[in-house]
């Protein structure tokens, strides 16, 4: 496993049902009441409701889960976690699914995984985020499928630059003194052997 941005290697395959076991453990007590769905601010944009997604997870339906965009639409507001009558860590389970999509380099989640991947890569090199570097690299990765994506943010980018809230940065700067390279390498080697 590596944490480099997913653009380098993509796959359309979905994981084996056994890969869901740690998530199934967390949500085993789900009673399908739908409180999560009713609490979710992003449910209007989801193809599977959160309740339906948890049912698919418990049934090991990896194909349906990884054909759906539902878990990438979780904005981590924790409303479902707070309200779940069984006290299940649902937001955490959403993170687990996001991590599976990230590790599996699944092409259909590229807008999210490329965004997070480039963010992680930037802090790996510099220890703190460098906004312009991170966003430039993200736009470059997205360019083949969404060449016009930067236009939606160009006005904002200009305002931030003008106010000195963002700096013009060379997107391939060498790692700085706060580099987290060793930390990332250690975490990756531990996760690969677990």
């Amino acid at each position, binding site marked *: 496993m590596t*944490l480099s941005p997913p653009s380098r290697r993509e796959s359309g395959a979905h994981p084996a049902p056994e890969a869901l076991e740690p998530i199934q453990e967390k949500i085993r007590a789900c009673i399908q009441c739908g409180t999560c769905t009713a609490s979710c*601010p*992003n449910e*209007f*944009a989801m193809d599977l409701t959160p309740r339906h997604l948890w049912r698919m997870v418990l049934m090991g339906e990896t194909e349906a889960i990884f054909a759906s965009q539902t878990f*990438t*639409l979780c*904005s*981590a*507001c*924790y*409303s479902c*976690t*707070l309200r779940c009558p069984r006290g299940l860590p649902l*937001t955490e389970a959403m*993170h*687990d699914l*996001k*991590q599976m999509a*990230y590790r599996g380099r699944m092409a259909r989640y590229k*807008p*999210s*995984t490329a*965004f*997070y*991947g480039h*963010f*992680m890569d930037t*802090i790996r090199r510099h*220890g*703190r*985020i460098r*906004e312009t570097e991170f966003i430039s690299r*993200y736009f470059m990765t997205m360019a083949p499928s969404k060449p016009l994506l930067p236009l*939606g*943010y160009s*006005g*904002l980018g200009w*305002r*931030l630059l003008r*106010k*000195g*809230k*963002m*700096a013009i940065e060379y997107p391939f700067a060498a790692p700085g003194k*706060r580099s*987290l390279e*060793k*930390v*990332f*390498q*250690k*975490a*990756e080697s*531990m*996760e690969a052997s677990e």
Partner: protein
Amino acid sequence: MSYLYYPGCSLTGTAREYDLATRAVMDAMGVPLTELEEWTCCGASAAEACSELLALALPAINLAIAEKMDGKQDVLVPCSACYLNLKKANETLRQDGKTRERVNSVLAEKELTLKGSVGVRHLLDVLATDLGAETVRRKVKVDLSHLTIAPYYGCQCLRPYAVFDDPEEPRSMEPLIRATGARVHPWQMGAKCCGASHMNTKMEVALELVHAILQAARGADAIVTVCPMCQMNLEAYQDKINRRYGDVSSVTILYLPQLIGMAFGISDEDLGLGLNLAIDDRFLSKHKTAVPA
């Protein structure tokens, strides 16, 4: 009363005014802040979507730095996303010895070890609980009674850890707003989600959520926030939202310590008011009047 201070990445860039205003207001109330030495990114909302171990290790690095500097003072965090990451790592690693060992093996690469001895506090918690509205009121020099303010809490300062307020119907900002002399805008959107990083990856979804918030703020002179991500989502896309829906007008978005600092008579420059992306002229100093003695 003093705190260690974790500004987080946003407060050094796109949210510089939140850093300026936080420092200025704490200074005015005589509360020293000591910035964490060589702090690094907490992982934001990216680490949790990529690696479970890094999502704990990245904030834990900063907690370990805090312990090394001073094991007693709480770490004050103004950004809600940073706050949640630090808080979650602290709580998880205090309770789960096995995970703490795993994380400490990662931290060894930076010659750090986490014990779990420091507390993690959100800026709003410190303002509302440790300092309180009365401390704020005593420092007020400028009359803001002509303003109606909508308090916006967002998600991660109170969910899932509802430490200092009700996570569904929070009220902790209201006494602070009233202490500045301003009125509180009554609304139900204070704890609703702004869409967070969907604004970058699924913009239509985030615009829908922000639209509902801006619509409900109608009648308020400003919305105050306690999170750089909420602030940016509410202030930066107002024109786009108005073009799309046609039923919202522009509204001033301030960080809570900016509002408090205005009431203290702190200069626009020291509060970074020139850096806000949505701010009406009425909020700049030439339009303010002093409270009669």
